[in-house]
């Protein structure tokens, strides 16, 4: 089991992570760019020293802030790291790349490569591979090291969404078969949802919420989490805040406990430099609301979307009448 409870000092803000992952469990760290996601993975992989806390894998202490000299070296701690760029060695063939780890066996490498659809590419150099093939080779190579934890730093973000999700599914299958725990870093909710058992929302170095992917979307515990998981606009009334998603509205007010409202926009009408909307809500805020969106610059632009014939709004914060 991986138990990590640490802090890494950075110039802008310290990055803190406290997680535990069972063997084979898949975690995703979701957050905006610059939140400290990659820092978390680099610390787990042993590329960064900790400023506080420690990382333990099963009975092995991988890193400890109090004794950085005793940190296990990257590559010797049972942790692999796949980055957005596959990092294949251009002077070696696919098979040579996969067999690069000192403990790799050619037989096992061929078998894994063939299972991952790389059987015909073993003699090819990385320059002749597509982005998806290169990432599959990188995964295959990482698995040859006998890792118990695999860190995935947005490895498929440069690929198109369909291929990215296909590869994520492949990674999932391989990791489940090998009983390897994994940490996926992503800023895309759909990747986290497709991959992970649990999602951690990270912003400015702090974990804001941990939960299963569905729970995060249905019950964001604050405006920031709501924004990170895809809610695009907020409506305020008194001390309460409604987070607006293209297909739902959620109350994220601390006072109301953050649940129990669903609503749909029934009318949107531009009117004298403002946009008026009517929203029908059930649950905690049942009734019909009249929302007025000022087009004043300080409120940001209001983007109107049309889905299934119904106008929806995103990208604004407005005060309810």
């Amino acid at each position, binding site marked *: 089991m991986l138990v990590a409870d640490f802090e890494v000092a950075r110039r802008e803000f310290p990055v803190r992570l406290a997680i535990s992952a069972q063997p084979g469990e898949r975690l995703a760290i979701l957050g905006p760019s610059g939140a400290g996601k990659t820092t978390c993975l680099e610390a787990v992989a042993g590329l960064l020293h900790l400023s506080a806390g420690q990382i333990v894998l099963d009975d092995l202490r991988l890193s400890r802030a109090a004794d950085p000299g005793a940190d296990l070296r990257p*590559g010797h701690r049972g942790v692999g790291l796949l980055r957005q760029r596959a990092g294949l060695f251009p*002077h070696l063939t696919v098979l040579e790349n996969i067999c690069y*780890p000192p403990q790799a066996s050619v037989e096992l490498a061929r078998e894994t490569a063939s299972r991952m659809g790389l059987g015909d590419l073993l003699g090819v150099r990385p320059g002749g591979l597509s982005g998806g093939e290169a990432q599959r080779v990188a995964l295959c190579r990482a698995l040859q*090291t006998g890792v118990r934890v695999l860190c995935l730093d947005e490895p498929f973000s440069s690929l198109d969404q369909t291929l990215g999700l296909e590869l994520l599914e492949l990674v999932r299958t391989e990791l489940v078969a090998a009983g390897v725990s994994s940490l996926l870093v992503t800023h895309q909710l759909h990747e986290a949802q497709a991959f992970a058992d649990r999602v951690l929302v990270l912003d400015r170095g702090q974990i804001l919420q941990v939960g299963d992917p569905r729970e995060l979307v249905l019950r964001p515990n604050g405006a920031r989490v709501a924004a990170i998981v895809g809610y695009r606009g907020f409506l305020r009334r008194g001390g309460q805040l409604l987070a607006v998603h293209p297909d739902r509205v959620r109350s994220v007010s601390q006072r109301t406990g953050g649940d129990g409202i669903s609503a749909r926009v029934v009318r949107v009408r531009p009117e004298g430099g403002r946009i008026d909307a009517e929203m029908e809500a059930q649950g905690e805020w049942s009734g019909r609301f009249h929302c007025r969106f000022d087009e004043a610059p300080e409120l940001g632009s209001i983007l109107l979307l049309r889905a299934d014939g119904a106008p929806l709004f995103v990208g604004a914060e407005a005060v309810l009448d």
Partner: protein
Amino acid sequence: MTVPPAPAALRGPGVRVSTGAALVGALIVWVALLGPLIALFAHLTPGSVVSALRQPGALQPLLVSVLASLVALAVILLLGTPLAYLLARGRLPWPRIWEIGVILPLLTPPLVVGLLLIFMVGPNTAIGNALSHIDLSASDTFFALVVAEIYEAVPYYVLGAAAAFASVDPELEEAATLLGDGRWRTWRRVTAPLAAPGLATALAITWARAMGAFGAVLIIAYHPFGLPMQIWVTLQETGLSSALPFALVLLVVALPLPVGAYLWSARARRRL
């Protein structure tokens, strides 16, 4: 199917050179650069080369030059490679100071380097005295020749090697580390093979510079005669025609390695 021409904004800037103009330009460059070489061959006959090289001791300067250059190259390789790597990876404190130190011998006229070396390693200096305790002298000795060649050639290697190392993606070294390699193993299996084409070019240029070192050599290592000194002395004592065979020998010995290294590295780069 015809491919439509790229929009003007996407085409390369500037003037397109026609094939005829390119040929004329290439001819001018080749004649200008190879002119002296052509002149050398035009003024040499096989008989004159053979008779010059059959003189007693005629090949001794060649031997001295090759040996001194090999020693200089070994020293440069041994000290210059780690320095170039650390410079390329930005792991040295005050990198500008190091870079200026490396470039300075390149910017200083070789004759001046020779004069300054007298003040540094000459017989009446602290280093000169220390060397004398181990029976070495940096004045008119084989050792002095090696020192002079190192000063004249080392910037070419360090700058070339640093560029070669800088061209290796640090993420590949990180990948090797994450796959279980230590520093030395990573260097041997990833960094060195990927930097090899650039290193080969740097080494070949350095070899040519060491073989042809003259300015600093003239001042601190007049003896034993290496090939450049032999050419100079022969030119002074018996004239141009006697010096030309030695010039040919210097070219024949100094040039094949750089040319070969260039061709090999160009091929190796294409494979990466």
